């Protein structure tokens, strides 16, 4: 049965504080891994942390001791290069010991640049190539419907992969199949590798486009835990018949001043001096 790490917290402020602290710990782990693994997708990893922490620690029904528990909610990281953020969160909630992450990127490690379902407990499907995850999530949601099950499928996409045609094929089909048990989240950090999305290949008006594709569209500050909780605690029922997409307005490189809002930190390596500077900034965000 479900074992969220926040089940013992009854006070709302305490809950937010707990999650914000976990997000800060995740950011520090991302930086550590980028140092020891000689690089990582830092910008997009840092932007997705808060939503992903909220989902794994509080929103989703999971049993980390039994990763294949049939009634668990499913999570697909369509932006598979966010593994450097997701894998530490999986460790935090107990899918595997955190020390294991030290092998990140090394030969025979369970962990690498992109998610690996073969070797990482808690990863539902190996991803990496963009524009794939949402279709797989649609298939899972259809499977749940066939079984009369009420688990949800969450799919986190990068905004860059909203430029992939296959993503729009999947969007069209989720509405057609009335998948109210599917929740897509777009990490709208506004940058791809080569620059700002709106200069490279504009996505706006994104919310209007998604509404035109017959989705329930919610916009949220994806770096604000209060707002994130308000949205995910009030999702339509999985038995409803319109899929929901949450546009999480985020900041590439969030939490580290010299990385924020810059394409050059889409992927990068850091030394221990830079790491120390970043950790200091992140520690300052941890609520007392």
């Amino acid at each position: 049965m479900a074992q969220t790490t926040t089940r013992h917290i009854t006070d709302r402020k305490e809950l937010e504080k707990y999650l914000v602290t976990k997000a800060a710990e995740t950011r520090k782990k991302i930086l550590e891994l980028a140092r020891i693994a000689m690089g990582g997708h830092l910008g997009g990893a840092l932007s997705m942390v808060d939503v992903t922490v909220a989902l794994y620690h509080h929103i989703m029904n999971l049993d980390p001791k039994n990763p294949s528990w049939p009634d668990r909610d499913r999570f697909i990281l369509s932006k598979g290069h966010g593994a450097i953020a997701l894998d530490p969160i999986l460790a935090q909630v107990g899918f595997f010991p955190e020390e294991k992450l030290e092998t990140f990127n090394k030969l025979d490690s369970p962990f690498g640049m992109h998610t690996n379902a073969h070797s990482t407990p808690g990863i539902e499907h190996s991803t990496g190539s963009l524009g794939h995850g949402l279709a797989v999530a649609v298939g899972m949601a259809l499977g749940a419907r066939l079984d009369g099950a009420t688990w949800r499928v969450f799919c986190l996409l990068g905004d860059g992969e909203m430029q992939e045609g296959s993503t729009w094929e999947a969007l069209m089909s989720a509405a057609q199949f009335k998948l109210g048990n599917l929740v897509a989240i777009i990490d709208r950090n506004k940058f791809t590798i080569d620059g700002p999305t709106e200069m490279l290949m504009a996505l706006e008006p994104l919310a209007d486009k998604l509404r035109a594709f017959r989705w329930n569209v919610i916009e949220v500050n994806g770096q604000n835990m209060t707002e994130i909780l308000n949205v995910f605690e009030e999702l339509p029922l999985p038995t409803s018949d319109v899929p929901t997409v949450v546009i999480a307005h985020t900041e590439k490189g969030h939490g580290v001043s010299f990385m924020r809002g810059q394409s050059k930190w889409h992927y990068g390596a850091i030394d221990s001096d830079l790491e120390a500077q970043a950790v200091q900034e992140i520690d300052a965000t941890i609520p007392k």
Partner: protein
Amino acid sequence: MAEGMTFTIHDLDMLTQAEVYGKALVELGRQNKNVVVLTADLMRSNKTGEFAAAYPERFFNVGVAEQNLFGIAAGLARAGKIPFASTFAAFASMRACEQVRTDIAYNNVPVKIVATHSGLSMGTGGPTHFATEDIAIMRAMPNMTVIVPADSIETARAVAACVDLPGPAYIRIGRGFEPAAYEDENYDYTIGKSVLMRDGSDITLICCGVAVNAGVIVSSQLEGEGVSVRVINMHTIKPLDREAVVKAAKETRFIITAEEHNIIGGLGSAVAEVLAEEGAAVKLKRLGVRDEYSEIGYPEALYNRYNLDSDSMSRVIAELKEQRAF
């Protein structure tokens, strides 16, 4: 053959490969509630519409969106279903190549891809709708089983046999008007094990798909002319029945492969790999499309052009004999 699924030779004379596939799916759907069927706006062509009529809740038509077709199939497999996903072979292997490779083969989920209208069988449709690269593409994907049924009977056998495979499979069928290679369904069908259609001692024809029936006719014709032709139905391209290839290399003096595919990368290449690795001293000729985009025409005319019908195969063998090649 799946329990309860029987076809008479009369049925099979009247039914195309796709129609048999459609009926086989309905039977599988009756036996196993986890069987689900998907297509991309081709339920009339590939006859999955029969399943749609019988089990509408387990049938998904995604419209003209082949990438989405295979991504959704992978997700259904992740949710414990056994998806059969069908579209034309050209689109399954090329338009949706990366979904098949990454979401199905790499993730190693049990999606069964039944690709219809393969090879040159679209005839007048031309190269945009031909698939003469698909065996090569699918064969290069780890975890993928690659099956090319010879006729309608074997299509039913293949579909039933792959249900229990733990991983993905690519089943490549034609447009469906191919003549029967088998007289009845009473033969041993095992994935990865070829079928000896005719024994012979001079040369061996290793065939798949539409070339199997042609090979059997050739063997009968040449028997009267003093040429003993062994015919092997290599219905599984991967894993290849290496033993049958090595045996043919030892017991006959020349091997010909015949496939409705480019001679690069398909059955001919798979056989050549085994022969080279085993150090077999035997000559090899690969029949099929010779690394070009095929002409347009009715399938029968194309099979003649690319040495895949019995007349052209007989001519090739007569020429080899004249050259004292065997």
